[in-house]
């Protein structure tokens, strides 16, 4: 058997590979448009900014998801956390809309964290259950229809206005990214997430309050999902049923493509950023190429599996 931990830079390898793959996607897409339309819209700054704007919702969800995956857990409730936060925010409206949306995220995170850390239910089951409960509650709340309440002006501004020519959603994503990256790297809580995700027993015996760390991480994930939901409602001008459904799998894929170990303990935030950009660009290039929906799904899934095969299998040895 080879060395289990080959080099110091092993965490950077996935980031480099994913970045290279982004360039591949861009050049393949550009080659396609040049040959068919004689232009290269993919490389125009405006197009890229627009992609990043739609990517920012996924990016915020993925940021929270990464924190939970670093613990070796998963949060499958993000889809309906987004929807619930968006619906409650639009229902309440006014100045309280955004705080209420965020509060929904905190609440869902506390419930998830309590179930996983204190009741010791596997996160895959517990968060799936919470997702279903939220969906039921939202159907009951809206009667199964799209709510008529519109997003507040502040929500719309955050999601779809431009500041200095750059979509403000990107600034929100950037701010969330800075907070998460600093938290993971520079705070005791962040380091304890890595320690706990690496070896919960050793963390506990080192006097880390592992249950609080798990609880806190689920709250972070809940808040991120809620923020993304509130912004998505602002972007679409209102909340609607199942608006978060398209985000769960891409969020997990972005985190894992970015090199975070799905079993926890290892991963850098920069990787998640790269992973989100990769997924967003892949989606948009496939749609530019007018790939039918069926083919898009197949290619999209195959690329994710391929990326994981390239580097996801190496670091499994852990004893």
């Amino acid at each position, binding site marked *: 058997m080879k060395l*289990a*931990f080959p080099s*110091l830079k092993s965490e950077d390898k996935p980031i480099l590979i994913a970045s290279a793959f982004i360039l591949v996607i861009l050049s393949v897409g550009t080659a396609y448009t040049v040959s068919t339309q004689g232009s290269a819209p993919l490389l125009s700054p405006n197009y890229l900014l627009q992609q990043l704007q739609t990517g920012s919702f996924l990016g915020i969800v993925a940021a929270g998801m990464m924190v939970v995956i670093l613990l070796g857990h998963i949060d499958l409730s993000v889809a309906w956390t987004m929807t619930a936060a968006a619906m409650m925010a639009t229902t309440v409206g006014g100045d309280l809309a955004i705080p209420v949306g965020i509060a929904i995220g905190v609440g869902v995170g506390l419930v998830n964290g309590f179930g996983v850390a204190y009741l010791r239910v596997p996160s895959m089951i517990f968060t799936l259950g919470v997702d279903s409960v939220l969906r039921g509650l939202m159907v009951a709340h809206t009667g199964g229809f799209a709510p008529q309440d519109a997003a507040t002006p502040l929500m719309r501004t955050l999601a779809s206005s431009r500041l200095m020519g750059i979509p403000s959603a990107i600034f929100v994503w950037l701010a969330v990214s800075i907070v998460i990256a600093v938290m993971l790297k*520079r*705070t*005791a*809580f962040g*380091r*304890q997430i*890595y*320690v706990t995700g*690496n*070896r919960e*027993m*050793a*963390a*506990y*015996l*080192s*006097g*880390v*309050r592992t249950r609080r760390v798990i609880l806190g991480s689920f709250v972070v994930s809940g808040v991120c999902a809620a923020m993304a939901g509130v912004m998505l409602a602002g972007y679409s001008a209102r909340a609607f049923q199942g608006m978060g459904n398209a985000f769960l799998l891409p969020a997990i894929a972005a985190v894992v493509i970015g090199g975070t170990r799905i079993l926890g*303990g*290892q991963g850098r935030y920069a990787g998640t950023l790269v992973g989100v950009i990769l997924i967003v660009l892949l989606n948009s290039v496939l749609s530019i190429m007018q790939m039918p929906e069926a083919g898009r799904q197949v290619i999209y899934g195959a690329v994710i599996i391929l990326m994981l095969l390239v580097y996801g299998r190496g*670091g499994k040895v*852990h*004893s």
Partner: protein
Amino acid sequence: MTADHPIVQLSGVSKHFSGTRALEGVDFACFGGAIHGILGENGAGKSTLIKIISGVLQPDSGEMRVNDAPVSFSNPTQAVASGIVCIFQELSLVPDLSVADNISLSSPPRRFGLIDPRAQRRRAEKLLARIKCEDIDPNALVRELSLSRRQMVEIAKALGKDPKVLILDEATSALTSRDVETVYELLADLKAQNVASLFISHRMHEIEQLCDTLSVFRNGQHIQTFPKGTHSDGEIVRLMIGREVDAQYPPRPAPAPRPEHLRIEDLAWENQLNGINLSIGKGEIVGLGGLDGQGQKELLLGLFGVLRGMSGRVSIAGKPCRPKSPAEAKQGALRIALVPEDRKTEGLMLAMSIADNLMAASYDRVSDGPFINAAKAKRAVEDGIAKLRIKLGSPEDPVATLSGGNQQKVVIAKWLMTDPDVILLNDPTRGIDVGTKQEIYRLMRDLADQGKTILLYSSDYAELIGCCDRVMVMYDGEIVASLSGDAITEEAIVAASLNVSDTQTMPGLPHA
């Protein structure tokens, strides 16, 4: 010894685990129709020996022959095919399957390619009847059985494999006395059928009653094999200990009155701890001796706040001490540290950097509010590395790249960074090199001289003798002997560990 040719013969077998030797050039033979006892201290190589014979481990060098034909097993199934069956100390039953399923797990009786439950059940009944366990329902789930019943199922399972060589590793330790009698009869039966039995037990009287031949192991070497009755208990104990001392210990200070710091009264937990009373002073090193699994680990974990539902009283510096978690144990007035048993799973985050591992217990000391102060963290890490002289490339390297000894130093340094008053050590020198061992011994004495209270469990008796001011020998969750000063001798510790009290070399030991 009834046969001329050994069934199993090992010559020159060696086995190393990451630098430490488990077996070194062992020649060993066992014969059909004999019950062969294997004796040795913890870590003498007994378990490695039987694991090699039964195909669980592969030797690094040397040769093994079964019935004169050279063999090399790459897994236990091949050993079973050659008639070598082992009953392991750790039970190998699947708790959620029925007794009958478990007994026929590896080769169930089949009918049309499907498992035949009725034949399986009849087979289980027959095997259980052979060891007089008709009371066990073959349809019962193993998880519903008591530990002693499970052990008997384990024995039935082994019998079902039709052994030519049967290995029993501490197989009687969980049994009731009636079952032990049954096992004795069974072994006598098997002996008449020319089966060879290898019997490992820490109970001296069992070995004396049962075995024809005894082999003593020490430090991975086969010391001597002799027929029963040619050596006295005292001689056997001396053979197990040997005379070599391979480590230097710092001088022990003269006994002095020390203010009491840690006091334990009537501490009990499940049936692992049965009323521990112990008082340790500031600046004192107290050792816990005895065989593995007599409650030493539970005592340390209990003091550290890991175990739920303990009874009894513990106080530190006169104040009651009842931490509910390690996080509470390390803080405030208690200031307890624990160097755990298994550094790879309990002590370290192997994939993380040395710096992260060092800081894992003391984030609160290097942080301003929620933020880690990079300068403080760097200083703390450098301090820890310097204090224990950890040999490393960069503090950012994964801790897995260090040698075993340096890894253990990281665990110890991590805890010294919390500035503990009470230090609990669970076998801190296991599997590390002699040089690092000596550094750790010196460090423990230095810490004691600074007024720390140290409680050390070690499976190495020489270490207890060399390092400790007092040694408490535990047996079955109780302290059965308290030794101090010159009364700490290997003879006294070994005798108390085995709970025998009739060797001439241990005057004044309490009978337990």
